């Protein structure tokens, strides 16, 4: 159980896909201007990530090394299309908001990256932990970014038509938070926070006599 828990927690903190591995950022910056969008995007990513991790891991013994990437892509694209069709059918309002970003999960590096780096070499059970951990790590950052961007960018947070939170009327929301420059600046602060947190985690592990390996190199896309 220890390995399972460690893999799961690593996805959220020490190997967070967004703040440490830095993959899949494009969609992140694009959809986090609204909490509603990032919430459903997160659910979609968690689903696709866990399912593709499970399947890739289950068939890893029968997957020849030479054609593994095409096979991963077929698996991932299938799950993304399933999510795409289901969302269109059952939550059309949210689908209208996320639009192109759902089909684009196919090319999101987090999914392919985890299939290649983790699920292809590990058991199904551990791959579930990795998928869930990475997915939740992704969601936490998404929700954090979108809460700040929506609240301070529009003055209120609206979730599925209900207003959750509103700033007083004298607050004039700066438009920059909603556009990409604002997203980049804010994301920089989030990375800084995550680095500080991970440093603390390392220090604590060291104090209790365990060594945590250095973080992997940041990704490519």
């Amino acid at each position, binding site marked *: 159980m220890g390995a399972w828990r460690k893999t799961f927690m690593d996805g959220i903190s020490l190997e967070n896909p967004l703040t440490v591995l830095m993959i899949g950022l494009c969609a992140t910056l694009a959809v986090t*201007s609204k909490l509603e969008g990032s919430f459903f995007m997160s659910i979609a990513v968690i689903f696709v990530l866990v399912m593709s991790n499970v399947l890739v891991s289950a068939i890893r013994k029968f*997957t020849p090394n030479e054609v593994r990437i095409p096979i991963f892509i*077929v698996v991932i694209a*299938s799950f993304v299309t399933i999510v795409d069709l289901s969302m269109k059918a*059952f939550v059309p309002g949210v689908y209208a908001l996320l639009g*192109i970003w759902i089909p684009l999960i196919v090319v999101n590096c987090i999914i392919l990256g985890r299939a290649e780096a983790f699920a292809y070499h590990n058991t199904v059970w551990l791959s579930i932990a990795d998928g869930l951990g990475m997915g939740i790590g992704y969601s936490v950052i998404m929700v954090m970014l979108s809460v700040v961007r929506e609240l301070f960018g529009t003055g209120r947070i609206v979730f599925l038509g209900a207003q959750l939170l509103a700033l007083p009327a004298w607050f004039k929301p700066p438009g920059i938070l*909603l*556009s990409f420059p604002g997203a980049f600046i804010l994301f920089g602060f989030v990375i800084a926070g995550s680095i500080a947190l991970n440093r603390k985690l390392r220090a604590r592990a060291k104090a209790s006599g365990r060594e945590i390996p250095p973080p992997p190199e940041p990704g490519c896309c």
Partner: protein
Amino acid sequence: MDKTAIKLVVSTTVVCIVAAAGLGMTYGVTKDRIAKMDREAEVAALRAVLPDAKRFSKVAAAEDLAAAKKAAGEVTFVSAYSASSSGGDPAGWGVRVASRGYGGPMQLVIGLDRDGKVTGVSIVAMNETPGLGTKVLTEKWFMRQFTKLPAGASDADLRKLDAISGATKSSRGVRHGVEAAVRVWRAAFGGGGGN
């Protein structure tokens, strides 16, 4: 062929067949619901822009459609509906167009009364930046401008309307859509109105 080549072909083929089967199943389950949702969204949009109308029948006359398509110009004409009140009296027209916004096509339904006055604009689908481009929906004054236009407004009348700051392209997308709808009305349904 040696053994590895066969293995590569077989494994890829099997994965593709299984994936295709899964997708086919999902498509079968969701197909009708997606079509139903699309229809409902369109009817809801027509109701919103033509509140007095009860029934909508799709315009099918080939010459009207050809004229509408031509009149719409650069904006894509999708479909048109003639609306009638519960008593069967003609109540106006609903025109669906796809105009170019900032994030791709914006699917708009524009309601026009029998005289060609815009009664309302609603957005069926769009892909504008949430919080910026989507202001065309949340800033109520923007949409209200269109309903204050005179009957059969010209493109020049429409150009005088205000755009939303920070959402210039999205505002323009809506405006071009309305312009096209009025042109469609003039070319295909003007003069008579209702049937």
